[in-house]
């Protein structure tokens, strides 16, 4: 179901967590709320779930205005950052919780729980307790628990934040595929732009309690509407007021009318990508991103003087 947030503000004491925020999330979309810590993204997620109440504004899920509804009547599945497992219950009882509180018949509960456990690949672990699971398994149990009552929307707060890098990568991939399978409208909060670009179909960039820009990952990267978005999504060079993407800087062996001289300060090999740190004639430092083929052709070395062709810089008023 689509989610609409209209004019939502929230203050905690003197701190403004959200400042008149408007967001629309399409039905069935996988959306990332992306922003630095303190940008209000988690607060927005909790307001959508009904775990916080906004000072002003409204939340609409599908065609229901739910601003005054308590969390339990919103039809929202929520996955907490630290999973919030019920530690005294088995994996089975954790996943069944949302069904047994609704007094669903036992046979139906059993069927649904086993269906979900196999969906999240925890088949054999129904009788385990949360303390006996790894971080990734806990994460998947929390997800199965949230999905059990068939929520209209699924909300995840920093879902991969507490996991180590490898598990995180696997789970990202897996969340994307899960979403393709079940198509529930999903919003997840993250501070990691790469994670947002990797997983989400839509990204909402937040900063200091406001929405900076919303769009597809491609849109945001290619057409950032302001300096914050450009510098938060993808790497940038800053030349005065202008911003340049490092991979838009071309390095050529010979100068021409469109190039400037550049002194190679340092060459860093990062696998496929090579990071070249340059000093321009006016003394400013920038860095360029080239492929290893280019680096090999140019025989890049420290102290070398080359020609750099800078792209038209983007300047945001």
């Amino acid at each position, binding site marked *: 179901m689509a989610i609409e947030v209209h004019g939502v503000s929230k203050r905690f004491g003197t701190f403004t967590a959200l400042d008149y925020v408007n967001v629309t999330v399409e039905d069935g979309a996988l959306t990332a709320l992306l922003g630095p810590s303190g940008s209000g993204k988690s607060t927005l997620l909790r307001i959508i779930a009904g775990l916080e109440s906004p000072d002003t504004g409204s939340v609409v899920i599908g065609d229901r205005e739910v601003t005054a509804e308590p969390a339990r009547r919103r039809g929202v599945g929520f996955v*907490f950052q630290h999973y919030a497992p*019920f530690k005294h219950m088995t994996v089975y009882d954790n996943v069944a*919780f949302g069904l047994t509180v*609704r007094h669903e018949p036992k046979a139906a509960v059993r069927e649904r729980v086993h269906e979900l456990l196999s969906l999240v690949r925890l088949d054999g672990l129904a009788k385990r*307790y949360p*303390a006996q699971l790894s971080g990734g398994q806990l994460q998947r149990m*929390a997800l199965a628990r949230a999905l059990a009552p068939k929520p209209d929307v699924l909300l995840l707060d920093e879902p991969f934040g507490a996991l180590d890098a490898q598990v995180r990568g696997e789970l990202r991939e897996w969340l994307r595929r899960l979403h393709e399978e079940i198509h529930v409208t999903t919003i997840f909060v993250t501070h990691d732009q790469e994670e947002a670009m990797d997983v989400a179909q839509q990204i909402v960039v937040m900063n200091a309690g406001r929405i900076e820009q919303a769009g597809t990952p491609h849109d945001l990267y290619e057409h950032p509407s302001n300096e914050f978005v450009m510098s938060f999504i993808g790497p940038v060079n800053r030349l005065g007021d202008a911003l340049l993407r490092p991979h838009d800087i071309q390095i050529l062996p010979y100068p021409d009318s469109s190039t400037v001289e550049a002194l190679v300060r340092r060459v860093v090999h990062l696998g496929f990508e090579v990071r070249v740190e340059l000093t321009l004639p006016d003394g400013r430092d920038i860095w360029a991103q080239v492929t290893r083929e280019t680096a090999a052709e140019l025989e890049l070395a420290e102290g070398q003087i080359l020609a750099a062709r800078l792209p038209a810089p983007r300047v945001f008023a």
Partner: protein
Amino acid sequence: MSSSEAAAIGPAGAANGGVALPPGASSRWSDSTGAARTRRLSLRFVALLYLLALLGAPVAMIFYRTFEHGIAPAWNAVTQPNAVHAFWLSVELVAIVVPLNTAAGIGIALLMERGRMRGRSLLGLIVDLPFAISPVVVGLALLLVYGRTGWFGNWLAAHGIQVIFSVPGMVLATAFVSLPFVARETIPVLHELGTDSEQAAATLGASSWQTFWRVTLPAIRWGVVYGVVLTTARALGEFGAVSIVSGRIEGQTQTLPLYVQDRFENFDTTGAYAAAVVLALLAFATLATMSLLAKRTSRDTVV
């Protein structure tokens, strides 16, 4: 503090410490150099000696003196009608006060940790009052409020309700002195638990009632159980406050501790020791029940 109280609190504290210790907490002591072993052994020795002097010896002496002439005199002493009455009165008080204070204690803990009302710190102070005020003062205060010349005394007497010198007053006194235990044991556990799992229950469709019974209470049960043990021990052993509001009427408002005192004052040491042993056994039974419960639940659950 009566001996039964001390007996009840001591081992319970030790048992709780054992439960609360994370695995590996003792590793600091497990290096096996000679100096460390000596230190460890001497620490054990001092701790055991202290416990023995404080608890073991007095309790053992009571048992010894009770049974030094065999079981018959002791049995006769505790089957006196007044002794039996005192026993059942103490049990009755515990049966009324412990559920009341358990419910009140959990309620107060929830208010303090989950409530948003102002003045929570004031509530915390009030809850601790029974720790700070001498039980004798509590008894006197109750007398002032509910006694014949007290604020409500006349009104209550006019409606045929006698509080002082009868069971209601003793319930009030016992409830007052044993109020803080459940709340004080539950508050830190609630705090530690945090609100995430309760919020998770809410998003899964649970009502506050369902959340409390199915998520919060099971998670804080050890704090509550320990609080209940302490409350029971305190209620069983309470002397000062009950002594004043009960009027110590033999066979009517005499609880087991009052009976012990009464026998002792009347030079009936056999009766006093035998009744004291019964008190101690009641306390042991409470502890044993709780640790049995603890064992069974921890077998079902890995927390």
